[in-house]
């Protein structure tokens, strides 16, 4: 086989890979849209569910999901920024960097159901916090911590050293340099990571299904220690009664709403990243 032919074949192969992956994406979107759209109307988005979800709407599921990821973002952000600053500014040794990286990737690699079991044992049983949405938020915050930490770290670390040295040479302390120079620049990375993390967290079922949610009969929580209903667990419950065409219809509708939320978070992450370029890119 000559070199030209090999080159062409390789180009075609990459094209096929791209087409295949986009087809899968659009096929999934298409099916969810096709089946979900007929279920969606104003009542579906504004009413509480009844008859175990087979009739009524999903307003409390949407509220529960959004509330839970919002708090997980609030819990996650300070820890992620702190870890990112420590890794970027205080760790000099390459060995320690490698160890921290391994730890972060390990946390990222833990299966989500393990987080659920961990939350059940520690928070619900040992600490006696009961099945509540705040436990779900804490567990989701742990899950998205690696994503947010790495995103923040990369945006802080990509600021050229000369900015740090210039500020230090003017007599600023390390803390002033972090607060006045690095954080304003690194914050966009934190928010981008947070939006990507939240997009992932809002779709998680396994870690929250036995620690934070009830499958039916809950409204908006009045305190930290009540369970909520969420979109993914609602879909799970509806899928279990798939023989009922009404339930199935609502499962598709809920899926469409969930996917729309995920896409919204992802697109805002992209927009945010494009809008707030760090110094290094200029």
């Amino acid at each position, binding site marked *: 086989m000559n070199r030209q032919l090999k080159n062409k074949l390789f180009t075609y192969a990459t094209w096929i890979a791209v087409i295949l992956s986009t087809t899968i994406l659009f096929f999934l979107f298409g099916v969810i849209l096709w089946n979900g759209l007929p279920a969606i109307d104003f009542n579906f988005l504004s009413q509480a569910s009844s008859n175990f979800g087979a009739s009524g709407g999903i307003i409390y599921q949407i509220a529960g999901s959004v509330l839970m990821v919002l708090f997980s973002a609030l819990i996650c952000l300070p820890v992620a920024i702190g870890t990112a600053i420590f890794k970027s500014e205080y760790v*000099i*040794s*390459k060995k320690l960097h490698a160890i921290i990286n391994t730890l972060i990737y390990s946390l990222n690699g833990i299966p989500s159901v393990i987080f659920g079991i961990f939350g059940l044992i520690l928070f619900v049983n040992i600490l006696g916090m009961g099945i509540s949405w705040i436990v779900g938020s804490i567990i989701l915050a742990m899950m998205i911590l690696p994503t947010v930490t790495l995103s923040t770290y990369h945006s802080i670390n990509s600021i*050229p050293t*000369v*900015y740090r*040295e*210039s*500020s*230090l*040479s*003017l*007599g*600023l*302390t390390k803390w*002033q340099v972090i607060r*006045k*120079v690095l954080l304003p*620049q690194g914050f966009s990375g934190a928010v981008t990571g947070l939006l990507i993390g939240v997009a992932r967290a809002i779709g998680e079922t396994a870690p929250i299904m036995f620690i934070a949610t009830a499958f039916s009969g809950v409204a908006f929580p009045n305190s930290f220690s009540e369970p909520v209903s969420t979109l993914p667990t609602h879909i799970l419950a509806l899928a279990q009664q798939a023989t009922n065409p009404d339930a199935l219809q609502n499962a598709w509708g809920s899926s469409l709403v969930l996917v729309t939320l995920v896409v919204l978070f992802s697109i805002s992450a992209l927009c945010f990243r494009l809008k707030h370029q760090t*110094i290094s890119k*200029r």
Partner: protein
Amino acid sequence: MEQHILKSKLSVVGKTTEDIIKLEGLHIWIKENHILDAIDVNIPKNKITCIIGPSGSGKSTLIRSINRINDDVDGITTQGNINFNGSSILTSDTDIASLRTQIGMVFQKPCVFPKSIKENVLFGIRHLKKLSKIEKLQIVEENLKTVSLWKEVSHRLNDKAISLSIGQQQRLCIARTLAVKPEVILLDEPTSSLDPLSTRAIEDMMVKLKEEYTIVFVTHNIQQAKRIADHLIFICDGKLIEQGNASALFSCPQNSQTKAYLKDQYCAC
């Protein structure tokens, strides 16, 4: 201009000068590499001291150790002593942040912050003490005038500093350093990324600034050192080869290596 330099050079002859900084037996290792080997130099007050030498000779490491900006380099070991105004700055209880307000530094690549021109001038000083609006404006005007940037930017102080040319940015960086009112200004090849015109502007500025400040200037450009230096330090391969009065050293270097380097920019060490 030449005359002006000559005059200022002549005016300092005969005056006894004190040394503001003294390096005694300074060794620096970065991991296993011996970057600086027993450097003994003195830096006279209110003079321009030029550090010259081939690339990789340790010029930057030397100047960067004077305000301890090297501290954060991975695997650095320092031995020996650096005296500033009579006291050691290498002790563990040295207040590094306040040391750096006394010994400022300008880097090779101009580095302006993503803020306005005005904010850039004030960037260091406003973190050190509280300033009223009038004080701020005075500091901005005074320091931009010193670096001859005032005429060019006085009508657009709130524009982004990034909109200035590279030469203007470097002068802004010098103004920012001057605003903190240091005693010593370290400049690490500040003109190597600039055009000849901006380079000359900065050289002229240095000659004026030495009335008030002590200037340490690293350059790989021998002609530049010839134009501005009062005191010359020549290092090669981490070792001090020769130091002394610049005009004496340029006219008759004692060391054969210095002679070869000043003539051919080549050093066989």
